[in-house]
């Protein structure tokens, strides 16, 4: 006699956020908040833009690390290279923002492809060290190549022409915010589709058991290179956005701290949810700003403490909390419906 799971209880899939008849309402919430921010943020709009850029960057880490299990600490390399590429294009070739965005994305993707081919046959700690090493090398190169990057002074003199030739990038960052939101939305929809595609499911399989995937005929190495390139492209877009909305690129965009911060954002929000990256990055940026206002010298202490509490007590991050609330509400609803 074999023990079978309880068939009467609703499965986790049925209770998942976004499933069921009113599932679409859950999608409206984050995007609605993001759109509403445009109208109410006022002087904080540039902070909102920075949050959107970090959401996109964190999303790229979720794709590589969360879904495909590629342990990368060097994602900032693609962010920074995308930023410098977009900046350099605007200075030397064309001030068009869309072309700059595409160029920054393409260069970052190319770098992802080349480094991916070099390092993705390794795994675990070795892979982690290699991603760190590559990011460090690129950071050092940018610091040394002052003629190209401006070195410590950063890349100055960027000119960005109006978006679609109509909407200039204003001082208050209104165009910048909507531009970033639109780009984030496009990438988010793509990512949403990708992780549900046969390709995305094979990545999930590779994360769980590369051995299994090879046994069913999956070219694991090529799959990993593909997603690594994709994640690099996404990070490159985030970097390009940052360069264009700030009209400046500094060495800090290549800093390992950027990778670390985004990892913290991802863990705070919850991995492998896509919206986890969304919620985590937005939450982090807001809390950081509040904490820095509250105590400009010890805000990192607060962030650190928050992370420890989240990791120890809240499995699945903020999205895990949302799940829990959703479950509780669903049970309450089912309970009253039966009576």
């Amino acid at each position, binding site marked *: 006699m074999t023990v079978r799971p309880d068939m009467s209880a609703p499965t986790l899939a049925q209770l998942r956020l976004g499933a069921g008849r009113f599932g679409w309402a859950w999608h409206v919430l984050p995007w609605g908040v993001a759109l509403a921010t445009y109208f109410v943020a006022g002087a904080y709009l540039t902070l909102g833009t920075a949050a959107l850029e970090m959401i996109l960057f964190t999303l790229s880490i979720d794709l590589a690390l969360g879904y495909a299990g590629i342990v990368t600490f060097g994602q900032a390399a693609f962010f920074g290279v995308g930023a410098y590429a977009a900046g350099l294009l605007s200075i030397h070739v064309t001030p068009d923002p869309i072309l700059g965005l595409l160029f920054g994305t393409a260069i970052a993707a190319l770098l992802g492809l080349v480094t991916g081919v070099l390092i993705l046959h390794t795994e675990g700690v070795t892979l982690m060290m290699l991603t760190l090493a590559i990011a460090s090398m690129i950071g050092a190169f940018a610091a040394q190549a002052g003629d190209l990057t401006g070195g410590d002074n950063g890349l100055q003199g960027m000119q960005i022409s109006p978006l679609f030739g109509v909407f200039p990038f204003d001082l208050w960052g209104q165009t910048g915010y909507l531009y970033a939101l639109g780009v984030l939305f496009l990438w988010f929809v793509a990512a949403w589709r990708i992780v549900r*595609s046969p*390709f995305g499911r*094979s990545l999930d*399989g590779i994360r769980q058991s590369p051995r299994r995937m090879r046994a069913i*005929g999956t070219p694991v190495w090529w799959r990993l290179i593909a997603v690594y390139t994709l994640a690099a492209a996404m990070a490159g877009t985030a970097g390009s956005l940052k360069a264009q909305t700030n009209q400046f690129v500094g060495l800090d965009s290549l800093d390992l701290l950027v990778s670390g911060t985004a990892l913290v954002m991802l863990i705070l929000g919850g991995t492998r949810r896509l919206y986890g990256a969304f919620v985590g990055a937005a939450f982090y940026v807001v809390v950081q700003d509040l904490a820095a206002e509250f105590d400009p010298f010890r805000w990192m202490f607060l962030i650190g403490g928050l992370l420890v509490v989240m990791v120890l007590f809240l499995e699945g991050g903020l999205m895990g909390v949302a799940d829990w609330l959703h479950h509780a509400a669903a049970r309450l609803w089912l309970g009253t419906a039966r009576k």
Partner: protein
Amino acid sequence: MTTSHAALSVRGLCKNFGALTVAQSIDLDLQPGARLGLIGPNGAGKTSFVNLLTGMLRADAGTILLNGEEITGLKPEARVHRGLVRTHQINTLLLETSLRENLAIAVAERENFAWRLLRFTPQWRRCLAEGEAQLAAFGIADLAQHRVAELPYGQQRLLEIAIALVLKPRVLLLDEPAAGVPAAEAHAIHAALDKLPAEISILMIEHDMDVVFRFAREIAVLVQGRVLTTGTPQAIAADPQVRAVYLGRSAP
């Protein structure tokens, strides 16, 4: 070459790890529809032999032919696409994924859908449907939407075989399919093994003599990376050489 070649044909297969020889000039043929059991004491090179066949290990010398085509230099995934499929002794299933998706992922790979990032919904539905059909054939259709981790071990072993089957293998390597399964659940595994399509050529590696003698119509004995002898189960059971290897020199 004639049309009636072996499903799998191994000639002069050699592999050394430094001074350790795991395969010394192995010759083996698997006829279409064969049920060949491969037995041997611990360290005889059974697992290495499977890894050589699947391409996880590179042979130092020798050739492997699958339906008359040379596959010696091919990568493991390419061999799977040619119809050489294996099951694993240890669990490699996707534990966090549902049963039907475990199967659908394999179907998608077989059909080369797995590179699809866009426009995939109808194909993926077909993959899921085929997965569910396979589960029904194994009598576990009601578990389709449950995660593999929720399953008892015996049913996980069944799923392992089901995944191999949706890949439509021509040659199937079963690596200890019943290992670790409690006696009460073993009958389901045996039933599944008995029902495997007759046209598939099967090589079973197994420690458990009861399982081998029940399943195999022919048995090969591997000792120190060499095929000691091949014969019917009765002949092997009676072979004094085999008895000596298995039971030690002092055996009667």
